[in-house]
């Protein structure tokens, strides 16, 4: 058991940190967060330098690296800024499902497009709740193709993404199950509706998307008909690792800022970092950051070794998103009034941590899934 990153991983981590430190402009960050804007300029540069899709094979525009490498990049980006980091991580949301189940043509069409920063992919799977067992969005067989009806919510970048992976309840004479489609967002019958202002993850605009009898061809099916549910479950394992990595980055970034502030801020004639309540808080924060980091590494490694164990990915997301939330809250407390101000930056980390924990599936849903697993039933 080796707890160290290898040379290549350490180099990637270093490069990602340097890129983030050099490129993420604090003033622009405030603007993007305020106006709920995706940071296009940063994303373009990140793609040009090969930070996006590192875990795609080289034939599809990636670098043939592992999920762990990808996670290290997400962590480094989120550490510098929670908003940009999550925007980068979600700019190709659903790509791993294309990678795992797409036809050669689908993979060649979409993956290099994403890695090279030509556009975005979204995953339309959530509806109103977290329950993924039955979707209201339905795909009917229609000649050689399908017709999709329904409405998805919390669809990331739906206003700008060129491609979408859409999860549907499959309704055909011979099958009931779920089917997943890869379609272009310019097809007829798609309507978008803003979800308004969000509390966090504001650099990832989200929409409600209605599919009003959208006609898709048979070749737009991703993988096999009716297998959607297992594809989604498998994808969620990857997504949990990515979300977990974002959580670690947010927690670490909030910790960095709190420590830095505590060293500079003087009260009672000395730097507050020397005061017991502050030291204790920093120790608690560090414990949470490191616990989360190793849990995410463990989960990423288990997926890289093709041992699909939901247990580790659930733990990773659950622990890391909670760590992000708690550490960011403590960071606000250490900053005092300044922590509550927009320009203090940590409140932005805190809001993003809150949204991260609720996006996709909440910590409490993960806990009950884990409970079901331990008790030997359910997923």
């Amino acid at each position, binding site marked *: 058991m080796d707890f160290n990153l290898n040379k290549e991983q350490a180099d990637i981590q270093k490069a990602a940190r340097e890129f983030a430190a050099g490129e993420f402009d604090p003033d622009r960050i405030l603007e993007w967060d305020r106006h709920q804007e995706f940071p296009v300029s940063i994303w373009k540069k990140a793609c040009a330098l090969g930070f996006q899709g590192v875990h795609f094979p080289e034939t599809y525009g990636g670098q043939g690296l592992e999920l762990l490498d990808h996670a290290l990049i997400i962590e480094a980006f989120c550490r510098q800024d929670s908003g940009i980091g999550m925007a980068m991580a979600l700019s190709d949301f659903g790509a791993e499902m294309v990678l795992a189940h797409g036809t050669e043509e689908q993979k060649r069409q979409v993956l290099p497009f994403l890695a090279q920063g030509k556009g975005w992919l979204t995953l339309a799977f959530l509806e109103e709740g977290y329950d993924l067992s039955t979707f209201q969005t339905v795909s009917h067989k229609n000649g050689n193709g399908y017709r999709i009806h329904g409405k998805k919510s919390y669809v990331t970048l739906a206003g700008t993404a060129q491609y979408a992976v859409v999860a549907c309840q499959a309704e055909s004479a011979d099958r009931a199950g779920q089917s997943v489609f890869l379609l272009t967002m310019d097809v007829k019958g798609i309507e978008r509706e803003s979800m308004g202002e969000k509390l966090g993850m504001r650099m990832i605009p989200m929409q409600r998307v209605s599919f009003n009898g959208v006609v898709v061809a048979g070749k737009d099916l991703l993988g096999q008909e009716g297998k959607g549910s297992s594809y989604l479950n498998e994808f969620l394992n990857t997504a949990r690792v990515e979300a977990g990595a974002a959580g670690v980055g947010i927690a670490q970034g909030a910790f960095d800022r709190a420590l830095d502030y505590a060293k500079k801020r003087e009260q009672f004639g000395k730097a507050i970092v020397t005061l017991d309540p502050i030291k204790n808080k920093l120790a608690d924060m560090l414990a949470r950051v490191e616990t989360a980091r190793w849990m995410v590494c463990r989960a990423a490694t288990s997926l890289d070794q093709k041992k699909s164990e939901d247990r580790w990915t659930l733990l990773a997301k659950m622990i890391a998103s909670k760590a992000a939330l708690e550490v960011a809250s403590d960071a606000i407390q250490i900053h005092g009034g300044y922590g509550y*101000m927009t320009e203090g930056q940590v409140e932005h980390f805190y809001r993003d941590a809150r949204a991260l924990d609720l996006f996709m599936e909440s910590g409490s849903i993960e806990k009950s899934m884990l409970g079901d697993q331990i008790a030997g039933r359910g997923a």
Partner: protein
Amino acid sequence: MEILNYTEDHLKFRERVRTFFEKEVTPHVDEWEKSGITPKSIWKRMGQEGFLCTSVPKEYGGLGADFLYSLIVSEELIHTRHTGLAAPLHSDVVVPYIISFGSEELKRKYLPPCVSGDMISAIAMTEPNAGSDLASIQTTAVEDGNDVVINGEKTFISNGINCELLIIVARDPSTSDAYSGMDLYVVEAGTKGFEKSKKLSKMGWHSQDTAELTFTDCRIPKGNRLGYKGGGFLMLMEKLQQERLMVCIGAVAGAERMLRDTLRFCGEKMDFGKPVTKLHNNRFKIVEMAAEVRLGRVFLDKLVADHMEGKSIVVDVSMGKFWTTEMAMRVADQCLELHGSYGYCEDNAMARAWRDMRVLAIFAGTNEIMKGIAVKFMGL
């Protein structure tokens, strides 16, 4: 046996306040949150209705009412689901300094407009380099003939833009002792050298005009000092108790409000084929929150009763301030989580409540300072 004894008059007053807020505040909250400030007109309306500064003696235009009236206004304000209209700060934190320590002249001049809402008040303690360490404030007040000249910078001042009247904490540079060199002065907005320099952008309390204030050779009459020379620190220590009690009220009433809203919303919202309130581990979580909220309420009411009897509540209110605000933040967080993905959409009231609650652990003395006070009194 009830802890607090409300009379018919109190209950009628509560009803009037509630109806007024429902009609004249709640419908405008979203607009105020966007504009980052509350309009002065609502303060005047509150004044006309007799809802401001209820504790001001009748001879100065107030109701001369007991603290339950303050409690009622504060609690009912919580039900408007926003925090920006900081009337309790004006009525029950700032103005009491003038009631208790103002000269007859200051009382005659300033109490009536504070009651009527023609003057909104604020208090300026915190500075960029003096937060928890109040004794280290650098703003100076230098006597010059019949005047006092104020120089310095204050920050995180609630009602900072709207205020017509400010109580400022400043030190006399000729006195080396930080505590006995501290004084409180009343400064009117518009006085030369008093600049409302910057409205601050915050995580929550968006409708509250929190600001930075700058004083450059700001000249005020010597008679604007509250109390005896050098008595500022002791006055603060006395009045901070009620300020912290007001925070406890906001925390407990806020937690009650959030829990009620969440139960209503999540009792209807379906997921996994059931109402969210009946799901998985949610039921115990809700019961745990309800228990915390009840405990907070009982402790709060006892604090209010003790305060009204004139007992010293220094230790209890310090404990109450950190416990109730941490409880309110826990409740906010868990309620938000029960809302699921919808929790992070700003069109639900919980998102705002979650943002607003976070500062309760920071202002009016951080929770670390509260624990420090309890440590001192317990002789630890």
